C-alpha cells in the first residue's frame, strides 16, 4: 500500500519535464510544460500503481487574458484522500489539445463543455459539439473577450 498523500518529490521524479508544486487548493499541483504530454501523463497517473488516480473529477479551463489554462482535478476511489491538480497552459490562438476520452470517460462531456465555453477544440474527440448552448450560438461566453449586444451593463460597473 502506497502512502495516502501524493508527494511533490515523487511526482517530480516521475514526470521530470513537468513542474510539481505543493498546491493549496486540491492536493499537489503538476504543471505540464506542453499540452502534448497531457494524454501520456494522465495515462500514467491513472494506471501506474503508485498513483492510481482513476477518477477525473473535474476538467475545466481558465482564461487569464493571455492564455488558457486547462485545470484537471484527479482523485482516486481507492485511496480517497489522494488528489492531484494538473494544469497546462495553452495559447489562445487555436492550440490543438489532444482528447482525454480514451483515458477518462468523463472527459467526453467535460471537453465538450470546455469547447462550448472557451472554444478550445480537442483533436480526436468522438463528438465535438456544443453541449449546453444551442448549436447556432455565436462565440464562447467564458472567454474574457466575449461580447454579446444583449448583455446588460450593470449600473456602476
Amino acid at each position, binding site marked *: 500500500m502506497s502512502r495516502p498523500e501524493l508527494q511533490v518529490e515523487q511526482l517530480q521524479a516521475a514526470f521530470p519535464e513537468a513542474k510539481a508544486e505543493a498546491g*493549496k*487548493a*486540491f492536493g499537489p499541483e503538476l504543471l505540464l510544460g506542453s499540452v502534448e504530454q497531457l494524454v501520456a501523463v494522465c495515462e500514467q497517473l491513472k494506471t501506474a500503481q503508485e498513483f492510481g488516480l*482513476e*477518477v*477525473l*473529477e*473535474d476538467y*475545466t479551463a*481558465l*482564461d487569464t487574458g493571455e492564455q488558457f489554462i486547462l*485545470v484537471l*482535478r484527479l482523485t482516486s*476511489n481507492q485511496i*480517497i*484522500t489522494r488528489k492531484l*491538480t494538473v494544469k497546462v497552459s495553452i495559447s489562445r490562438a487555436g492550440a490543438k489539445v489532444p482528447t482525454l476520452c480514451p483515458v*477518462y*470517460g*468523463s472527459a*467526453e*462531456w467535460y471537453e465538450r463543455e470546455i469547447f462550448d*465555453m472557451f472554444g478550445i477544440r480537442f483533436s480526436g474527440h468522438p463528438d465535438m459539439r*456544443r*453541449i*449546453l*448552448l*444551442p448549436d447556432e450560438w455565436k462565440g464562447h*461566453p*467564458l472567454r474574457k473577450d466575449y461580447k454579446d449586444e444583449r448583455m446588460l451593463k*450593470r449600473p456602476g*460597473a
Partner: protein
Amino acid sequence: MEAQSKSVDTLSHPEALQTDVITLNMGPQHPSTHGALRLILKLDGERVVSAQPDIGYVHRGYEKMAEAMTYNQYIYLTDRLDYLSAIFNEWCYCLACEQLAGIEVPRRAEYLRVISGELCRLSSHLVWLGAMGMDVGAFTPLTYTFREREMILEIFDLLCGQRMTFNYCRIGGVARDLPAGFIERVRDFLKYFERMPDVYDRLLSDNAIFLARTRGIGTLTQELAHSHAVTGPNLRGSGVSKDLRKDDPYSVYAEFDFKVCTQSEGDALARYRVRVEEMRQSARIIKQALDQLPAGEITAKVSRVFRPPVGETYARVESSRGIQGFYLVSDGSAKPARCRIRVPSFAGLSVMPKLLHHVQVADVVAIMGSIDFIVPEIDR
C-alpha cells in the same frame, strides 16, 4: 432478401428479423426526465439501441454571471443550481470563499450548517424516493414522502423564511441564529420520522414488482463509475465507500458518529437501498448535532465588501447527489475572476448512454429515476 429466404432461428438470432429502428424523442417535456432534459432514444421494438442525452435547456450561464457579481451577491444564485438540496450549493460556495480568504468559521455556524444540510439531504432523498416510485409506476409513495418533506420545508421556513431557496449560508457563517422553538420542532420531527424509512420499506422495498423492476437493472460497474467520475449515492451503490463527510471531513463532520452506506450490486435497487439508509444516517447526524450544539457566534468577522487575496481554491462538499465542487479564482477584486461549478449530476448523466444500452423502454425510466440527477444543476 437473402437472410429472409433462409430459415433462421429468430429466437436465438433476433437480428435476423430485420426490424426497423425508430427514433423516439423523450423530452424535453416528459414526466420522467425530471426537468427539461431531452433523451434521444433509438428503439428496436421495446429495446433501446442507443440513448443520447441532450442537455442545456435550462442553461442560465451561472459561471459567466459570477464574473459580473460580487462574491456576496452570488450566494443566493447558487440556491438555484440543485434546488432540492440548495444548502449544499451555498455551503460549498461559501466554503470556497472562506478558503480563499482564510476565514475561520465559528463552530456554532458549522453546526447550524450541518443541521440544515442534513435536513436538506433528507428532503432531497424524500423527493427522490417519491419520484422513483412514480417512475416505476407506484403513485402512492410520492404522497407519503411529500407529507414528510412538507414538514422539513416548514422547519426551513421557520429557520430562514424560505422553503426551498434558502439563502442561509454567508461567507464566514450563517445568516441568522436558530429561532425560538426550532430545536424542539426538529426533535419532534425526528421522533416522528424515525419509523418512516420502515414505512417506505413496506411500501416499496419488499414489493415483488418493485424488486423485479429494479434488481439487476442499470448495473453501474465500478470501472464505469471510476471512469465517468460518478460520485455520491450512485457510487456507493456500486460498492465504493466514498463519502467526503467521512473520508475527507470538512466542517465538523468528524465529530459525528454515522455510517457510510454502501451496497455492492450497483443496480437500481442498490442505489435505492443506499439512499433509504442514508436517510436514517442523516437523521442520526441531526440528532447528534442538536445534542452537541455549542453556543457562540454564528458568523466570523468579514468585511462588508469581500475582497479575497489573489489566489485560487477548489472546495468540495458531499451534497445529496454526490460531490459538489466550486473552483474560485480571485484576482484581488470584489468579483471572482472565474467561478467553476463541479456538479455531481453532470457525471451521473454522462454515464447514461452506457447504462441505457440494450435495456427495455420501461427500464430507461427506472434507471433515470435511480440515478437521481437534477437538470438545473447539470445545465447551470
